[in-house]
C-alpha cells in the first residue's frame, strides 16, 4: 500500500518545499566540518586542575543550593521590560469561578452581535 519512494518525497507547501532527509545530510556534513576544525585546536586540557575552577569575577563560591538561579528569575530583564503587558494578563486571570462563565457569555454575546448585524455572514 505504501510504496518505497513515497518515503523520500518532499513536502511541498504552496510556495516552498521541505525535505527533511536532505536537511539531515547537510547538517551532518556541517557537524563533520565543525568537528574537524575543533580537532585542529589546542590539546592542553587537564581535568581537575586550576583549569576547571569556575571564575565568578573574584567573588567567593557559595553552597550549590545558593548558587542556582531559580526558575522564576531566569528571564528577569524581559519580564521587567514588558511589565505593563504581564500585569494586564495577571489581572485578567483572577481564578474566580464565576469569571470563567462571564468570559464565555461575553464572547457569546460578541459573536451574536457580529453575526446578526452583518447578516448573511
Amino acid at each position, binding site marked *: 500500500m*505504501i510504496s518505497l519512494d*513515497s*518515503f523520500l*518525497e*518532499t*513536502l511541498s*507547501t*504552496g*510556495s*516552498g518545499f*521541505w525535505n*527533511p*532527509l536532505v*536537511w*539531515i545530510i547537510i547538517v551532518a556534513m556541517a557537524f563533520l566540518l565543525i568537528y574537524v576544525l575543533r580537532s585542529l585546536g589546542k590539546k592542553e586540557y587537564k581535568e581537575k586542575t586550576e583549569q576547571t575552577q569556575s571564575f565568578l569575577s573574584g567573588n567567593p563560591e557559595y553552597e*550549590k*543550593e545558593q*548558587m*542556582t*538561579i*531559580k*526558575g*522564576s528569575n*531566569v*528571564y528577569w530583564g*524581559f*519580564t521587567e521590560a514588558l511589565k505593563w*503587558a*504581564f500585569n494586564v*494578563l*495577571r489581572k*485578567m*486571570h483572577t*481564578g474566580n*469561578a464565576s*469569571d*470563567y*462563565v462571564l*468570559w*464565555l457569555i*461575553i*464572547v*457569546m454575546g460578541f*459573536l*451574536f452581535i*457580529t*453575526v*446578526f*448585524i*452583518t*447578516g*448573511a*455572514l
Partner: protein
Amino acid sequence: MNWFETITMHSPALIVAVPLLTGFLLPLVSRINDTVRNLFAIIMLSITGFLIAILGYDVLTNGIRTYVFGGGNTVVNLPSGLMFHVRIIFEVDVMNVFMIFITIILAIIGIIYSFSFMKKEDGLDKYYTIVFLLITSTLGMELTGDLFNFFVFLEISCITSCALIAFWVHKGESLEAAFKYIVVSSIGALFFLFALGLLYAQYNALNMATIANSIQFSIIDQAALVLMIAALAMKAGLVPMHMWLPDSYGEAPPSITFILIAATQASLYGAFRVIFTLYGNVFNSINLASLNLVLTTNTMGWIIIALAIITILVGVFMALIQTDFKRLIAFAAVAEIGYIFLGIGVRLASKYVQYTGGNATAVAFTEYSSIALNGSIFHIINDCLDIGLLFLVAGAIYYATKETSLDKMGGLARNMKYTTIFFIIGLLAVSGMPPLNGFASKLMLYESTFQLNPIIAIIAVLASIMLLAVFVKVFYSAFMGPEQPKFKEVKEVPRGMLVAMGAIVVIIIIFGLFPNLVINNLVQPAANALTNYTTYISKVIPGVI
C-alpha cells in the same frame, strides 16, 4: 460473509462497546489480583486498537461507512414517498478515522504509563474504571453522526474527566480545579443542547447529514451556529474562555492529563464538523452579489482568525511567567490550540479576498487555503504527541522528586539521563524545530497564512520562538545547573514510564522525517472528506447529489 467482513461491518459499534464493557467489568476483575487487572485492561485496549485498524483500512480504501443502530436501512420509505431517517447512525469517514487513531494511541500509551506511575496509589480499580469510561466517551464523540448522541458523549466525558481531575483528594487544589472545570463545562454543554433544540425545532431531524442537507441561514440557524461554536471552542480552550485549562491540566495526575488531551481534541473535532459539514452549504454559497464590502466580508473567518491570534499570544505570554511545571505546559497547550484555529479561520476567510484594486474577486479556495486546512489537521496530531510527551516528562520528574515547582528543582540531568533526552526532543518538537514533526505542520501554516495577510504569519513565527524560550527556561531550571544535595538519591524512573515516553519519541521522529507519509495517506484524505459535505450527506440520504 466471512468473519473478517462481519467484524468490519460491526466495528463502529464494537469500538464504543468494548471499552464500555471493560470499564464495567474492571471492578470485578480487580478483586482477583492487580496484575490480572492490568493485563485485562491492556488486552481489551489492544482489541480496540485492532478494530480501529480494521475500520481505518476499510474506510481509507472503500469510502464512508455507516452503521445503523437497530439494523436496516439508513432511511425509511414512507408510503407518501418521503424518505425519513429514524435511527441513530454512526457515520465514519476519513476525518473520524484520523481522530480515533489519535485517541487510541494516546489511550494505550497513557494506560501503559499509568501502570508504573500510579502503582503506589490507593483506589486504583475506580481509577481504571473511570479512565475506560473516558476513553469510551471520547471514541463515541468521534464516531457518531447524530447530534444528540454527540451531546450525550460530551456530557459523559465531562463527568468522568471531572472525577479524574479530582483524583488526589488530599490536596485542596485538585478539588478546586475539578469544581471550576465542571461548572464551566456543564454550562457550555447546556448551551449546546439549547442550540440542538433550535435545530430540531426548525428541521425535525437530529441527524447531521439530514440537517446539513436542508439548512438555510435564517435567524434561528445563525443563533444555533453561534451557540455551538462558542460552547465547542470553550471546551477546546480558545482564549478568553481557556481559564479552566491550566487549572485542570495542572492539577490532574499526569497520566490523566495525557488522556484528557484526547478528550479536548474530540471537542475540537466537533467544531470542525459543525463548521465544515453541518453548515457546509452555507459557507460554500457565499456569492459575490451578497457581499457588503464594508461589513460582511467573510466575517466568521476573520473572527476566528482574531480569536486564534489572541489565543496564541496570551498562551505564550502567560507561559513565560509561570513557576509551576505542569501549569506552564498547559499554557503552551493553549497556544497550540490557537494554531489549529488559525488554520480553520484562514480556510474560511480566504474564499473572497479583497485586493487593493478595490474589487473583491473570487479566490475560490485556491492552493493556500487547502494547505492551511492540511496544516491545521496535521497539527492536531503533532500537538497531541508533543504536549503529551512534555506532560509525561513532568510526571516522571514528579514521581522521582515529589516536586512540581520550578524554583525547587535543579541539576537533575545527572541522575535522569533518559528523561533529559526525551525532554530535549519534546522541547524541539513543540517549538517547531526541524527535522521534527512540529516543523512540518507549522511550516504549512506559516506559508499559507503569509499569503492571506503577512502580519498573521509574523505573529505565529514570533510565538514559536517565544515557546522555545519558555521551554529552554524549563530545561535550564529543571535539568541543568549544579547538583543539589537534596536530589542525591534520585534515580531514573521505572521502565514502564520510559517505554511509554520512548514510544512517543519514536512516533515523533518518524512523523518528522517522513511527513509526506502522513499527509498523503491520512491528512489529505481527511481534509477532502471534511470539505466534501455532499458525499457525507449522500451516504445517509441516497439520491442527493
